[in-house]
């Protein structure tokens, strides 16, 4: 290809890790083995809430093939009175989540682990561990957990000075809410409910850990952050971070759920005790029961508007399930729900509620879909009451550059209005609907994130490029980094390799999460490339005997900057690399920084459904996601983020839910009855990429991964209303529920 015309940003290049993935050679964590490896298995609680009076491991230890048995005594304890924070996690909860200490708090809570020569023996040994439980009353749902006589999970957690399952609150306020409602011509107030849903990553949790005789640990695992794995394993085992090397395996989906550890500390301690590499693979049942999900919720939304469609006041109260330990994503619910709008008077309030469920983990825009669900449904009702087009209502109230958001910041340049205009003009919005069909719209916001990133960019001896970054690549970030590097250096995309370093080979890099990876890694790669280009100019200056300032870097070669600089033939990257030893040594640079300037992302979705009036089945017929993506570095993978998020939203809205039985056990731990959308459930998912570049980013990047899951819950609910003429205020809108609504019960 002619290098002079190369422009790689915005091109749909083939991803660097693609060939390995389509041939089955890519190494996910459970694909890894080691000589002498043995297997671990975890004993889990059969009760939702119980005191552990004693654990007797003697029989298990005596079983032929068993090498070690561990309990909470083998994991570092973090006393309850001292928070130890790592990111959004607290080690007090983390140590008790990976291994129950004095109480089990949910069905599936780990309380011992075994290492044995085979997986089957390890499992058999777990069954021989004798646990004496004192069963306690339990609370699964929010209503049960917050009533006055609720069983208390953590005695030290107090709310209004009394032991409580309300572990925390968060609020945002703007203006005067009472004054605002007093000005309203129409006020709508509704209660909403959503169920807990799992991220649904197809790769279950697994790891392989080898602790050598010198005490140094190597961890192969699938996670959204090898540095998170290193830090948490260090905290929970006491091994210093310098003695833990965490190698990121290819990751088979995460969506937020792989931002914490479950197995790594256990396998590390088992490997320490046995002197053997230990592999643990969580099965699907345990993955559903004891990892993931995001919160179920109840909320109350009240919005008031004047008759000309101006929102004058909005109020949202949210209760979110945290699972067994504090930490539900209330920030996403109270912070994002009103973010698309310019509202003078607002108040959002969130409660973090613990109950006897698995501890929640992040899930794509954590909390924001719950926040937007109620608000965007109530806006639909306001539009109807005022006889205004729902998109027009949103336009009338849309936040713009300079708007002070309810959650605090004043917005810079942003593309929310553009998404609304694109929606109004989209052929989908103007198309005809059939019988029992309905159309809904909704908008959504996610903060996006910056944070720590590191990159190393090295020029090979033959003049090609290897870039290493520190973020596990879930959805094609290596492809985008290759595009950016090729563009900056002015060379063909094929000459760039992109690798994900492990904790020993690249500087600290925060999690793959918050839609931060491309935003942050593009920044550090850009800075590295700038340094490398400066080095290349210096080398050319040395060869030509002219000033570095008299040289420009263009299309992959050093050239004299003008006639005054002298008359020299350009020096290509390959030529300069070939002369590197003579001109000063290896060419390459690293850059590490805490990236700032991640600006929020906005989206508007249009959804058409058709409802089977006899069976209550809702089918999505047509779906269009429109999003301000800043700048699409690799448009196909940006579209993929929009489509994937929207499919997860369809599942959340229509078919996915955690179902607990009367014993406090999760009833649907398999994909047959935890029903994620399959191929035949969905239509093609259209996307419109709006590009309003982020002014604070060298390529204009905004995070794109999380916003797509924010609007679907309400867009689909609003469409169902249009189809059947009655509203559902709870999710999922499963066939029996929809049938009841149709029949008016």
């Amino acid at each position: 290809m002619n290098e002079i015309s190369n422009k790689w940003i915005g091109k749909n290049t083939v991803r660097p890790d693609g060939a390995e993935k389509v041939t089955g050679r890519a190494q996910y964590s459970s694909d890894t083995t080691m000589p002498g490896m043995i297997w671990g298995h975890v004993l889990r609680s059969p009760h939702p809430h119980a005191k552990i009076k004693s654990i007797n491991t003697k029989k298990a230890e005596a079983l032929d093939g068993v090498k070690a048995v561990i309990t909470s005594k083998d994991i570092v304890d973090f006393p309850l009175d001292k928070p130890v924070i790592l990111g959004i996690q607290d080690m007090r909860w983390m140590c008790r989540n990976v291994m129950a200490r004095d109480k089990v708090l949910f069905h599936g809570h780990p309380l011992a682990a075994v290492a044995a020569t085979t997986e089957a023996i390890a499992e058999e040994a777990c069954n021989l561990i004798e646990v004496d439980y004192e069963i306690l009353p339990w609370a699964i749902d929010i209503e049960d957990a917050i009533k006055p006589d609720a069983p208390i999970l953590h005695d030290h957690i107090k709310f209004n000075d009394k032991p409580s399952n309300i572990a925390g609150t968060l609020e945002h306020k703007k203006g005067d809410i009472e004054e605002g409602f007093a000005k309203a011509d129409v006020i709508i107030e509704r209660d909403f409910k959503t169920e807990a849903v799992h991220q649904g990553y197809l790769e279950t949790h697994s790891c392989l850990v080898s602790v050598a005789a010198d005490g140094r640990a190597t961890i192969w695992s699938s996670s959204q952050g090898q540095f998170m794995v290193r830090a948490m394993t260090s905290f929970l085992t006491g091994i210093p971070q310098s003695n833990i090397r965490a190698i990121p395996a290819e990751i088979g989906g995460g969506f937020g759920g792989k931002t914490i550890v479950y197995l790594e500390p256990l396998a590390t301690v088992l490997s320490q005790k046995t002197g053997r590499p230990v592999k643990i693979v969580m099965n699907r049942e345990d993955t559903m029961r004891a990892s993931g999900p995001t919160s179920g919720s109840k909320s109350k939304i009240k919005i008031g508007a004047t008759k000309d469609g101006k929102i004058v006041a909005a109020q949202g109260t949210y209760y979110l399930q945290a699972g067994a330990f504090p930490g539900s994503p209330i920030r996403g619910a109270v912070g994002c729900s009103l973010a698309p709008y310019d509202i003078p008077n607002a108040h959002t309030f969130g409660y973090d509620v613990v109950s006897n469920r698995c501890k929640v983990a992040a899930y794509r825009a954590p909390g924001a879909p719950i926040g937007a669900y109620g608000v965007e449904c109530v806006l639909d009702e306001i539009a109807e009451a005022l006889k205004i087009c729902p998109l027009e209502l949103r336009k009338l109230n849309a936040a713009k550059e300079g708007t002070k958001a309810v959650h605090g910041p004043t917005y810079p340049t942003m593309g929310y209005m553009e998404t609304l205009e694109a929606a109004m003009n989209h052929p989908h919005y103007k198309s005809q609907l059939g019988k029992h069909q309905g159309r809904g719209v909704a908008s959504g916001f996610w903060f996006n994130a910056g944070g720590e990133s590191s990159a190393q960019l090295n020029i090979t001896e033959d003049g090609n490029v290897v870039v290493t970054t520190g973020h596990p690549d879930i959805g094609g970030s290596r492809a985008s980094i290759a595009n950016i590097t090729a563009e900056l250096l002015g060379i063909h995309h094929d000459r760039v390799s992109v690798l994900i370093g492990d904790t020993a080979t690249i500087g600290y890099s925060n999690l793959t999460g918050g839609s931060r990876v491309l935003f942050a890694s593009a920044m550090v790669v850009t800075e590295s490339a700038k340094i490398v280009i400066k080095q290349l100019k210096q080398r050319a200056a040395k060869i030509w005997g002219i000033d570095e300032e008299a040289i420009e870097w263009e299309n992959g070669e050093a050239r004299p900057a003008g006639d005054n600089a002298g008359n020299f033939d350009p020096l290509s990257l390959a030529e300069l690399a070939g002369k590197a030893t003579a001109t000063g040594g290896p060419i390459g640079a690293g850059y590490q920084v805490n990236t700032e300037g991640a600006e929020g992302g906005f989206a508007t979705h249009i959804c058409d459904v058709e409802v089977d009036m006899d069976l209550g089945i809702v089918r999505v017929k047509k779906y269009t996601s429109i999003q301000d993506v800043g700048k699409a570095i690799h448009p196909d993978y940006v579209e993929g983020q929009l489509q994937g998020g929207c499919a997860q939203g369809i599942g959340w809205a229509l078919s996915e839910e955690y179902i607990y039985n009367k014993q406090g056990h999760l009833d649907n731990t398999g994909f047959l009855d935890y029903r994620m959308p399959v191929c035949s459930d969905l239509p093609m998912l259209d996307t419109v990429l709006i590009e309003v570049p982020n002014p604070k980013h060298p390529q204009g990047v905004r995070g794109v991964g999380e916003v797509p899951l924010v609007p679907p819950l309400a867009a689909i609910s609003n469409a169902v209303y249009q189809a059947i003429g009655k509203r559902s205020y709870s999710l999922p809108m499963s066939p029996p529920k929809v049938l009841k609504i149709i029949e008016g019960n």
Partner: protein
Amino acid sequence: MAKIQVSTKINNENVDYLCEPHDTMLDVLRNQLELTGSKESCGSGDCGSCSIILDGELVCSCLMLAAEAQGSKLETIEGMSEGGKLHALQQKFLEKAALQCGICTPGFLMASKALLDHNPSPTETEVRFWLAGNLCRCTGYDKIVKAVLEVADDMKESA
């Protein structure tokens, strides 16, 4: 209990192995034969990540006992490309970004190959229903369906 000896042909090579009566085909592929391209995501036949082709038919290798493979011909993802040349489906999946995390990709490729072997010119609906046994959580299936339809079209043009 004595192990069972099994003789098969996997990806056109003769393969003999010993297995326990309860070993699944997937266990043997992954843990004995080092064919880890077939993935276990559910172990209950609900996700299709372990899809292989057994004597021309698409099966979930997690639902099949390894002992049942005696005398059979198996195709796994490791045999899909020939002599370093990607199969048209593999190439199209790359070009059309029909994968994100990639864990479901081997299963989708095997299922798509089985579809086109049975039905070289499927409609979109036929593709969607054939692939309904394979879960993907990243893509929303859009680009996968388009890739399969395009390969079918390409095959028609080159036929």
